């Protein structure tokens, strides 16, 4: 994975020192809270319902075991012994103190981590496919370009006071595991006319109260032009994005208001001036970054591993876990493991310091010392020898990390909701916990199969409910918590926004409603159909019928 050179080190170290000064000026009263707010936000420090929250960037989700141990250390020393992995491949600490914030950032800097631009109206942490480099369907490793974008966007002098926050995601594979079409800019690696790799560029995706699927504005962009093209998009947006209403300030609104053709024309015109300037990417810089993401030293081993096959048969619990949490690796004899952070009754995405350390140890023992964070709030160990899977599973089990539900109904994505968030209408976490308990039976879960369920506590949609196969949105009706349900959303290469089923459900009815939806699907599906397949075939009507018939 990428390692800082002297320049990266200097930028991050100086940034912490600068922030330390800003905190000191705030504490001494030189800065008002109003003036301090954008400064702390640019360094990832939010003010929440009960306390400050620090959001630390995990660029494109990559972590070394050493970094993970540092995250555990921070959780223990500066927080209440745990951290929360988010849908943006970040980690959040919910209880840091203002006067210790710079100390935390100092700790993180020693392992080449930071919280720069994890909030504020800036270009945020760049996200990418958590299976980057190991997926069989990959055209090229998206992390190379995500890292190049990370550097370009870091402390960008022109784009630090954008109309609104700005999120960029990159996928290197045709099957999109990074939800690029829900981002302000989505970048998909693609082969050009002569077989060379470049990018397709999508703009204007977003969630919140106006969910929009990003539109393609350039079918093929050569690699050398990546940064100049991004700069052109951002420059158009920075000048024309709305600043009179924060709900209309995202780039999706600009693209919709002026139309994608006009927007594209403006970008292309701007780019004409920029493309041959200093932002053109030299081949040797791409090669330099690429070297950091070279494959680890895989052994030349057979794809068939008899001892693994026999364990599958003799240990059904292991077999269940392999069934849901283990994915095909591009190299024979290896496998990709998803470590679920969704135990029954737990808080989606939470991990304790002990769990973080345990996973770091397992990464060292079995996966070249590296791990990844996914947008589904899980972790990934990407390079496990099949013959090590059983030992790994036992290691995970010792720390409650073996939940066999990756990609299944209880692999719920949920935002903090009313338990932590000052903007919430309703609680998300208890609903996730109750659904987890209701669908605790593993055989039933496996029978239901692949499905995504997302719960946001308000229309800001932090948990991507619009693009969940089943989406739950907390709404407030005269001071009571209600839950609106959407069906048919998806966040892959066929991104769609879910359809609202009808009137919202009360707190006591929402789990039953989910069960009705699932039962309706089970009654309608044909062989091999997942929930989303069935939904796309039959549409909303049958679900509406069963949901509201009984009322």
């Amino acid at each position, binding site marked *: *994975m990428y*390692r*800082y*050179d*002297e*320049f990266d080190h*200097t*930028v991050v170290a*100086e*940034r912490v*020192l*600068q922030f330390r*000064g*800003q905190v000191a000026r705030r504490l001494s009263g030189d800065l008002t809270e109003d*003036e301090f707010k*954008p*400064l702390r936000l640019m360094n990832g420090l939010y003010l929440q319902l009960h306390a400050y929250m620090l959001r630390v960037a995990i660029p494109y989700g990559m972590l*070394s*075991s*050493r*970094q993970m141990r540092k995250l555990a250390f921070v959780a223990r020393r500066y927080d209440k012994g745990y951290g929360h992995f988010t849908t943006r491949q970040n980690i959040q600490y919910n209880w840091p103190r203002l006067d210790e914030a710079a100390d935390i950032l100092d700790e993180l800097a020693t392992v080449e981590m930071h919280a720069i631009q994890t909030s504020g*109206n800036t270009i945020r942490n760049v996200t990418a496919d958590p299976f980057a480099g190991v997926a069989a369907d990959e055209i090229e490793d998206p992390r190379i370009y995500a890292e190049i974008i990370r*550097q*370009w966007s*870091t*402390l*960008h*002098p*022109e*784009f*630090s*006071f*954008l*109309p609104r926050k700005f999120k960029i995601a990159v996928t290197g594979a045709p099957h999109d595991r990074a939800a690029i079409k829900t981002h302000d800019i989505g970048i998909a690696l693609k082969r050009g006319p002569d077989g060379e790799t470049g990018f397709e560029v999508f703009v204007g995706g977003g969630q919140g109260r106006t969910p929009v699927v990003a539109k393609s504005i350039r079918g093929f962009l050569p690699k050398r032009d990546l940064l100049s093209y991004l700069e052109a998009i951002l*420059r158009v947006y*920075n*000048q024309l994005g709305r*600043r009179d209403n924060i709900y209309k300030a995202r780039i999706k609104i600009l693209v919709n208001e002026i139309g994608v053709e006009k927007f594209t024309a403006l970008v292309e015109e701007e780019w004409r*001036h920029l493309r041959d*300037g*200093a*932002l053109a990417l*030299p081949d*040797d*810089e791409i090669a*330099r970054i690429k*070297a*950091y993401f*070279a494959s*680890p*030293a895989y052994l030349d081993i057979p794809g068939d591993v008899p001892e693994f096959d026999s364990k599958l048969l003799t240990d059904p619990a292991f077999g269940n876990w392999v069934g849901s949490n283990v994915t095909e690796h591009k190299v024979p004899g290896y496998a990709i493991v998803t470590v679920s952070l969704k135990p029954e009754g737990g808080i989606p995405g939470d991990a304790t310091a002990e769990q973080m350390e345990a996973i770091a140890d397992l990464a*060292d023992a079995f996966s*070249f*010392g*590296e791990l990844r964070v996914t947008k589904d709030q899980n972790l990934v160990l990407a390079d496990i020898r099949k013959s090590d899977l059983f030992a790994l599973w036992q290691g995970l089990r010792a720390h409650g990390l073996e939940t066999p539900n990756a990609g299944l109904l209880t692999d719920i994505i949920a935002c903090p909701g009313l338990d932590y968030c000052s903007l919430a209408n309703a609680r998300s976490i208890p609903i996730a916990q109750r659904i987890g308990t209701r669908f605790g039976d593993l055989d039933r879960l496996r029978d239901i199969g692949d499905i995504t369920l997302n719960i946001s506590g308000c229309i800001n949609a932090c948990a991507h409910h619009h693009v969940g196969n089943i989406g739950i949105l907390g709404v407030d009706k005269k001071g009571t918590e209600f839950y609106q349900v959407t069906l048919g959303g998806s966040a892959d290469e066929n991104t769609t926004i879910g359809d609202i089923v009808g009137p919202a459900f009360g707190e006591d009815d929402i789990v039953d409603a989910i069960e009705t939806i699932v039962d309706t699907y089970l009654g309608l599906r044909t062989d091999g159909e997942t929930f989303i397949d069935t939904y796309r075939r039959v549409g909303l009507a049958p679900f509406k019928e069963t949901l509201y018939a009984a009322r």
Partner: protein
Amino acid sequence: MPLAKDGQLIDDPWTLVADGAVPPAEGALLVSYATWTEHRDALSRRNAPLGIRLDSDQSPALIADDLDRFDLIALDIPVFKDGRAYSYARLLRERYGYAKELRAVGNVLRDQYHFLHRCGFDTFEVATDEAADAWWEALSEISHAYQPAADARRPILALRQARTEHSAPPRPDTATVAAGWAY
């Protein structure tokens, strides 16, 4: 309001002409875009310095053809969150080749000096006399920049290209990776 350049307070010889007023014949005048369009001919015939002040929703593209008439362009930042002036400044410097005084006016705070300077501003209207003191500190807090911009800094990419082989960065090697990413 005090005016600062390179961390020093400087005199402001410019007279701001109120909208609707007839520009006087003498002296260095700073006019709004509205005044400029209304009195364009008269202002062009004057033999004294002329400056223009643009609001944050007025792109410098509006005056791109007239740039050689101005000795000062002032870009308004009504609230620090309004970042349009950063793009305008770079366009003026890098696209249109404007080389004279470029002034940031409005809500200009110490923690913005660095980025404003990188985007091409050279004078700053500040809230208090003391606000200028932090200038050099603000500019030197972060010594390298990843991006090319309108200032003279060489971006990190260029510094890397110039780097000699023996100071090359740590290369990934699987032995250290497998050993738990130790240095």
